[in-house]
């Protein structure tokens, strides 16, 4: 075979090698076609959703920034295609009924396809908000657990994961428990603790998201037993996302990883927050002769200076206009504010009350002092020092005992008149 002929034979050989395909017998991974599997999945999810006596609760996250935090939705699916929806912004027993479908899309898609005031609350657009508030009402049903009491869903527009859990009690009872949990966790400054590791968290009043000092956002929802974060929170890689109240309700404990706990941060932080909301911590006792004498003198002096306004409360607070912690004496609706220094020690959960270095320059205070209510200075002097504290729950600080050298003052959170 000369070289010329070789070219003629080489070309078809190359073609045969390159273009040849394919006796392939791919191993079938699935037993059935995609269509049948999708159809089966739709039927399976329908039956799982309908077969819950009390319906389902969904951790609903309306937007992608998560700054609003999560919202609790409940849904009771019926065979006839109707669904009764409740959410935490409505009264616990209120529901709105509309229709739902499970359609084939990028998997089985649960869609609330007629208008429901509650379900579409975060999606409804307006002139001012032409994209609504980013809420979804179509959810891809991604998987469920074998027990059929958990479904992982994905919001079709927001791409947020919004898990659904089977309710084990009537929705109205669940909302009542959620409200109780929310009332229990009334502390904007919390600390996640794992061993000696700490992660301080902050949140604004009413918002269901904690923010770290690095501005990481941890949105969550309240549950009947505690709180459930959208993703794990912890220290040094030890994390949990579901937390329940400890038996004495003084902290939150990780369900899957009990080493992770969440408790209220130092009382001093809370005192500032409470003051901003119009609360003070009123002393219920004066357990030393020094304190008792200062208090008695104050009552006496006030009854002379302001006979029509007897003292009714004495305690701590934070004054936003003066921007300082204060000793606060209430006589009727009048307040005598005496500035104090307060420093917080996170390491050993103590705080120190000290004399304010700069003069307060407070007309209100000066006026009282000039009018003869000078014993407040004696009270302040008696209070200066470092305090340890104990409380039924760090999560809300409704009541607190502060201790200095064996002297324990009991304080109750009350509104400033």
């Amino acid at each position: 075979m000369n070289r010329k002929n070789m070219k003629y034979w080489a070309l078809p050989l190359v073609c045969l090698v390159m273009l040849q395909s394919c006796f392939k017998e791919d191993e079938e991974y699935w037993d059935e076609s995609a269509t049948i599997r999708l159809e089966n999945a739709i039927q399976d999810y329908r039956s799982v959703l309908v077969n819950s006596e009390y319906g389902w609760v969904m951790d609903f996250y309306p937007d992608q920034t998560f700054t609003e935090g999560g919202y609790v939705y409940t849904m009771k699916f019926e065979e006839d295609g109707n669904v009764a929806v409740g959410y935490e912004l409505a009264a616990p027993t209120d529901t709105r009924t509309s229709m739902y479908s499970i359609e084939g899309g990028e998997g089985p898609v649960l869609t609330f396809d007629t208008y429901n005031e509650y379900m579409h609350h975060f999606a409804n657009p307006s002139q001012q908000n032409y994209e609504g508030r980013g809420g979804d009402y179509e959810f891809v049903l991604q998987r469920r657990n074998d027990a059929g009491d958990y479904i992982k869903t994905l919001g079709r527009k927001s791409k947020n994961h919004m898990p659904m859990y089977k309710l084990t009690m009537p929705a109205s009872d669940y909302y009542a428990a959620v409200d109780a949990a929310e009332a229990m966790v009334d502390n904007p400054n919390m600390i996640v603790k794992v061993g000696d590791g700490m992660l301080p968290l902050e949140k604004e009043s009413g918002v269901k998201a904690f923010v770290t000092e690095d501005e990481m956002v941890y949105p969550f929802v309240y549950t009947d037993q505690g709180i459930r974060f959208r993703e794990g929170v912890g220290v040094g890689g030890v994390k949990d996302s579901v937390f329940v109240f400890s038996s004495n309700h003084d902290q939150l404990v990780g369900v899957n990883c009990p080493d992770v706990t969440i408790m209220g941060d130092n009382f001093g932080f809370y005192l500032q927050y409470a003051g901003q909301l119009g609360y003070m911590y009123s002393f219920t006792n004066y357990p030393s002769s020094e304190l008792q004498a200062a208090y008695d003198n104050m009552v006496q002096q006030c009854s002379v200076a302001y006979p029509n306004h007897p003292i009714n409360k004495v305690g701590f607070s934070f004054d936003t206009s003066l921007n300082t912690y204060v000793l606060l004496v209430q006589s009727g609706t009048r307040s005598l504010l005496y500035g104090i220094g307060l420093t917080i020690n996170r390491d050993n959960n103590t705080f120190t009350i000290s004399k304010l270095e700069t003069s307060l320059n407070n007309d209100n205070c000066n006026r009282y002092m000039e009018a003869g209510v000078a014993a407040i200075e004696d009270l302040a002097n008696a209070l200066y020092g470092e305090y340890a504290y104990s409380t039924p729950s760090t999560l809300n600080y409704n009541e607190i005992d502060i201790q200095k050298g064996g002297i324990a003052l009991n304080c109750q959170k009350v509104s400033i008149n």
Partner: protein
Amino acid sequence: MKLKYIFCAACLATAMVFTSCEKDEIDRSTSVIIDSDHVENDFDRWLYHELVLPYNIEVKYRYEDIESDMDYQLVPADYQKSVQLTHLMKYLCLEAYDEITGSKDFMRSYFPKMIVMTGSAAWQNNGSRVLGQAEGGRKITLFEVNEMDPTNIALLTEQYFHTIHHEFAHILHQTIPYDPSFDQISGSMYRGDNCFDYYSNSDALAQQDGFITAYAATEGAEDFVEIISMYVTNTPEYWENVMATAGDGADIIERKFDIVFDYMNDTWNINLNTLRDIVQRRSVEAEDLDVDDLTVPSDEKPEEIPLS
């Protein structure tokens, strides 16, 4: 050389023939379309009886993302509002034409086959909104259904029925064209999408230039159907008032209207004056309509009209 090319081509062809694959048989026994398994409700039954069988019209009141407009953030229509608006649309649009043509055949043949109800308005980022739109004569989408008040017929006419008459008129002239001389009357005055800005969204200003609405100044076809829609959905007094206040525009509108009137009369045997009387009479009667009624007579077999 030539022989060489032929030889190469033959080899290639041979190679390709030999490369055929073994393929799995296509499963023709299973459809890849998954039917929706909605449980039929009262409205579904009413729609089938009142709109599907007599008119071959489907009302989609349940939100489907593929039928919605991806450009907007939308929410579904309220069930009860959809029931009410469908009743009114049937009474004020479909049956008005039935009455003048003497049967349901006309609407069955020409009316868009799909009506999509959407709960919210289609809000745009400049604060404006779309209340209705049509696609290719096959589908009409009605927005902001959740806000509609079934007792305020005048507002509903402005928001919805005007659009429906408008879109339906498009279908008529796309089926049988109108006299091209119509487009010459305003000629270069048409302003395309700029019409709203040019007339500051004011119909009264547009009327001075011979356009019945600002939107009519878009192009000839829009002008044509706006005249039909505005004529039948408004009272004679309204029309006379426009003519009296349009200044130089009145004569232009009059000339256009003559062509429109003749077209409807000669082409479709529809006298616009009679149609307007019917629509106006029905607008008054609609206030007493039971717009929530979904009873379907069980002993009466629905009228099934064979496809012509």
